[in-house]
């Protein structure tokens, strides 16, 4: 009975069920050697996987900062484990794991001292007693420190120690598992688990993990291949599995970033380590506006770089009001220079990049001026930088010193009034709150008065943006700018400003706008900053104390905080000493760096139009335009399984068609004897395709008999002659010459050609289906 296309191995390639004792011993010895060789070879991808895991810290640290730690930590423990595990082998029993653990720890201390703490280490390598204590402390504090730091983190050894430790543990554990465990998968786990540490820590940091994850998948695939069970050499397994690894790597690179959840991963920075917002103590810049205006010639800082006429330098954001003063509440975090949450990250928001070099002069406090909104700040290494991710303000860890220089790169947003026109404000109670009760829990009557004023000022407004514009217009129209006005921005000051004096500086204008806006339900805040300053002959801009200005901002959904400028431009006539164009800060000039097109109206023009629009003529509030950010993102995730299937299918198909050719090439290599037997096995495979029963029960003569029955006479005769040679070589010890091997392959070619002409051969589609069967591919890869 013929069994067409039996899926088992060819007749002469199935291992024997009961190996003889001598053969068993030989195989056991060979298997032991091969096992050890596989284990040693697999150490390479183990080290690579650990190094890739360390490289994934590139979003948390600057690459140059982590390179030494990663390089040392990925290689040294692997080499140590190799030496300890193989050279230190006592008989057949491996050395105890505890010894390897101790050696690993003993080596890590000088390694981390040399690669991370080299400045404090003895001879730049050996840890001192104090350094050992510090390493321990830093290791405990590093995770929290990184979670409270805005990435990229500074090259603080106290933080970098975590890189060294995690990479070291991954490399050591992977190497030990590779050498001690016979399993295929286990050595992969430490590296992959360790990869999760930088991925979690880098949440929200610039850049992506796609490259690291892709490389890790590739390294993990190579590691699995190098440990694949089998009797072939690891190198050969690597070669045969590389197409699969490549396919999986490409797939990981393509589908990884598109998997659900990768666009919004859980952020431990906010959930675990977010410091509670604190009211920052110290001199409030808003309180100093009057003083600065009265002594306007103090040089505060200079700015080198392009500056637009309407550029305002932002100093601090004041977002809380207690009825007496505006004060900043922020969660300052250490940073290596990056400021997260730029306006450029908002969909649909146009921004323009601006880079300035700032040199401080007499500016004091902790706040660093920068164009809104800063994306990165670079200062000297000894300057501790901190940012408030919510407001984008930048500060230092210590008081500002004259001469401090830093470089600021900003993404300046360009607001489009047409888009803002109908946008709703953000539902943000913290930025709408006003104290309405006094110390005796009695209602403060001024709040109601302010609300009345605000409603009258914005009567007929159809949308929050129009409300804000009309409020600014009302303030500008009904109040004057005067630097000698009574300073202060408490409820009383503001009532005096609004109802009595109607004179004030930008402190009062901005504060009044913010308070009136909050009575209308607009989320507002006050920003203190500076106008562009005075141009110097060397092309830089000097900003003096007289350039100080405050302005309010309103938070619109999908756009962010939008500045308004309620301070009137006629301030100079009220006694202000600022007479240059830059001090005319009260004009409603939006701080855009993009000059409007000649034929398109500017924001000021548009705002005038919007403010003047009649609510009744509009026929009610139009439907709000959904912000771009709220639009659902393209659903790419469904493509991932399709891409996975396509990649697997392509890889499998390629392997299915490549495997027989690789097998044939393998059989044609080696000694003449090996080539002879390779030719015979090739013939057997071909005859199994032609209907010869598989399963390995066929003897050489049975195969020849089948060929005689199914092949043309000449091919059958050659097969019969070859079978005699094969039996002679195998059992009679006949020596095989190159000529014998060549003739065997010639006979193989003739027999294969004859078998292809056999009418009883299965149809083409049947053969293709059989060739694509995973079992066939697996059997082909296993065959000798």
């Amino acid at each position, binding site marked *: 009975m013929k069994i067409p296309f039996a899926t088992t191995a060819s007749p002469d390639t199935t291992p024997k069920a009961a190996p003889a004792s*001598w053969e068993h011993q030989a195989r056991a010895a060979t298997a032991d050697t091969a096992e050890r060789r596989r284990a040693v070879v697999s150490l390479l991808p183990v080290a690579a996987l650990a190094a890739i895991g360390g490289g994934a810290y590139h979003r948390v640290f600057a690459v140059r900062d982590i390179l030494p730690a990663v390089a040392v930590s990925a290689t040294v423990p692997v080499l140590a484990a190799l030496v300890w595990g193989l050279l230190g082998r006592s008989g057949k029993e491996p050395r105890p794991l505890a010894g390897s653990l101790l050696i690993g720890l003993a080596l890590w201390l000088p390694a981390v001292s040399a690669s991370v703490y080299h400045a404090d280490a003895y001879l730049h390598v050996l840890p001192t007693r104090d350094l050992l204590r510090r390493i321990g402390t830093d290791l405990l504090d590093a995770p929290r420190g990184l979670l409270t730091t805005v990435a990229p983190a500074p090259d603080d050894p106290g933080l970098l120690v975590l890189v060294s430790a995690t990479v070291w543990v991954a490399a050591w554990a992977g190497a030990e598992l590779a050498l001690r465990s016979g399993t295929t998968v286990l050595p992969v786990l430490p590296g992959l688990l360790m990869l999760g540490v930088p991925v979690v820590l880098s949440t929200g940091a610039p850049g992506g993990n796609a490259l690291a994850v892709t490389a890790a998948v590739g390294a993990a695939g190579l590691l699995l291949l190098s440990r694949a069970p089998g009797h072939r050499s690891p190198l050969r397994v690597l070669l045969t599995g590389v197409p699969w690894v490549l396919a999986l790597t490409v797939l990981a690179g393509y589908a990884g970033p598109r998997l659900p959840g990768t666009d919004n991963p859980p952020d431990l920075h906010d959930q675990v380590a977010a410091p509670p917002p604190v009211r920052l103590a110290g001199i409030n810049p808003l309180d100093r506006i009057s003083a600065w205006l009265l002594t306007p010639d103090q040089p505060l800082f200079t700015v080198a770089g392009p500056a637009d006429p309407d550029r305002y330098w932002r100093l601090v954001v004041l977002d809380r009001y207690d009825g007496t003063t505006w004060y900043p509440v922020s969660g300052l975090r250490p940073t290596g220079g990056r400021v997260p949450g730029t306006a450029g990250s908002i969909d649909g928001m146009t921004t323009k990049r601006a880079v300035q070099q700032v040199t401080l002069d007499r500016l004091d406090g902790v706040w660093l001026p920068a164009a809104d909104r800063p994306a990165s700040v670079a200062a000297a290494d000894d300057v501790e930088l901190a940012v408030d991710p919510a407001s984008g303000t930048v500060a230092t860890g210590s008081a500002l010193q004259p001469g401090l220089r830093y470089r600021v790169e900003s993404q300046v947003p360009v607001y489009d009034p047409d888009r803002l026109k109908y946008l709703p404000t953000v539902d943000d109670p913290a930025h709408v709150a006003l104290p309405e009760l006094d110390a005796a829990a009695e209602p403060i009557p001024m709040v109601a008065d302010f609300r009345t004023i605000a409603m009258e000022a914005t009567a007929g407004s159809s949308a929050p943006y129009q409300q804000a514009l009309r409020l600014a217009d009302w303030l500008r129209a009904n109040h004057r700018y005067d630097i000698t006005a009574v300073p202060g921005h408490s409820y009383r000051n503001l009532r005096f400003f609004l109802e009595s004096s109607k004179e004030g500086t930008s402190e009062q204008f901005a504060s009044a706008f913010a308070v009136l806006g909050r009575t209308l339900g607009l989320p507002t805040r006050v920003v203190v900053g500076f106008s562009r300053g005075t141009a110097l002959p060397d092309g830089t801009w000097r900003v003096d104390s007289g350039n100080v200005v405050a302005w309010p901002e309103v938070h619109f959904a999908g756009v962010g905080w939008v500045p308004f400028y309620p301070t009137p431009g006629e301030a100079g006539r009220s006694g202000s000493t600022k007479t240059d164009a830059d001090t005319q800060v009260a004009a409603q000039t939006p701080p855009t760096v993009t000059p409007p097109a000649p034929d398109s109206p500017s924001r000021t023009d548009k705002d005038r139009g919007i403010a003047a629009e009649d609510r009744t003529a509009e026929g009610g509030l139009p439907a709000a335009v959904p912000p771009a950010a709220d639009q659902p993102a393209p659903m790419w995730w469904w493509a991932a399984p399709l891409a996975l299937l396509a990649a697997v299918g392509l890889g499998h198909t390629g392997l299915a068609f490549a495997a027989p050719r690789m097998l044939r090439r393998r059989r044609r290599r080696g000694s003449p004897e090996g080539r002879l037997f390779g030719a015979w096995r090739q013939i057997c495979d071909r005859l199994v395709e032609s209907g010869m029963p598989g399963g*390995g029960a066929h003897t*050489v003569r049975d195969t020849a008999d089948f060929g005689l029955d199914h092949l043309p006479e000449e091919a059958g005769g050659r097969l019969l002659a070859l079978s005699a040679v094969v*039996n002679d070589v195998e059992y009679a010890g006949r020596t095989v010459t190159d000529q014998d091997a060549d003739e065997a392959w010639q006979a193989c070619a003739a027999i294969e050609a004859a078998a292809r002409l056999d009418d009883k051969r299965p149809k083409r589609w049947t053969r293709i289906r059989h060739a694509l069967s995973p079992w066939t591919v697996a059997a082909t890869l296993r065959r000798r």
Partner: protein
Amino acid sequence: MSTNPHPASAGHAAVPGAPVRQGGAPADSPWAPAGANLSAPREKGDGASAGLYGAPAQQSGPAVAYHAPDALRLFRECFRALADNVERVLMGKRDTVELALTALFAEGHLLIEDVPGTGKTTLARALAASLNASWQRVQFTPDLLPSDITGVSMFRQTTNTFEFLPGPVFANIVIGDEINRASPKTQSALLEVMEEARVTVDGSAHPVPRPFMVVATQNPVDMSGTYPLPEAQLDRFLMRLSVGYPDTRSEIQVASGAAGAASVETLPAIATAQHIGEFIEVARNRVQAAEPVVDYAVRIAQATRTSPHLKLGAGPRGSVALIRAAKVRAASQERGHLLPEDVKDLAEPVLTHRLMLAPDAELAGWTPESVLADILATVPAPVVGGLAGARR
């Protein structure tokens, strides 16, 4: 009592103790070498060649040392000559004849089982007639006693001692016709001699001549009044053969009494007992059994023990017999090494009579032959290249 009632009818000695026909190999024997270089050294002044096993040769002629370079060639020629000779009376049954000769050179015993009239006895007699050796024919009947086969001790008054009178089992070839008609007790009388080549009577062991072969026949159809051979007895037969009906052409030739067809009585003797004994040593010692081939034979035997269709499989004696027979087959093809094909080809005649079907399998229509064929189709043959690879 029907032990060889007509001993003279066959032209051979047929009574215990009668002289056997002796003589050298025919001069035109194709396998008998003229040169003496392949023979063991002759004793000076003695025309007979010295036996290799200590026993004196019974006649002159070349004695083949199993280590002689051409021993395998001589074996093959002798084997072919004997097969040709037997085939003269059993026409068209070359395979059966060669299997019978295989049993002879493997020093095993042969059970020929077939319906009446197919040439069972003829084969046995032709085999015996082709050898210049003693042979006895015993017709097994229900009243046959063990002593009728093995011999008896008689008291001689003249010497006042007991004297052992050997039975018909003391011959090189013992033909047991219709062996299943004897009682189990009588059948059991053959157990010792078939396994150990000796008979123990009254505490004294009496060896039978070498070579020693029991060729038994039985009829599988007419079972009335028969006693099926016990498993222990069946296991002692090296192989079981079925002659089968001849093809038409051969049957016509036999029926017409054609000139080419010879009778057992006119068959010439081809070889002597000494030659057979020495060729047995050639097959045993000159043919090397590689480990994988022996392993293959053992795995086949083991597979019969684990087959769900069999109540009883082949024991270790079966795998030993398989290798012995395979060695003879290899030697008959002038090969000094075993092939897996030798084992596979001989598995059926050597093993099937040792298999006992399970009741379910019997009801399902399985036969020992079909079960063994199924086993042979599943037991993996030795891997090509494995042995050569191990040698490297």
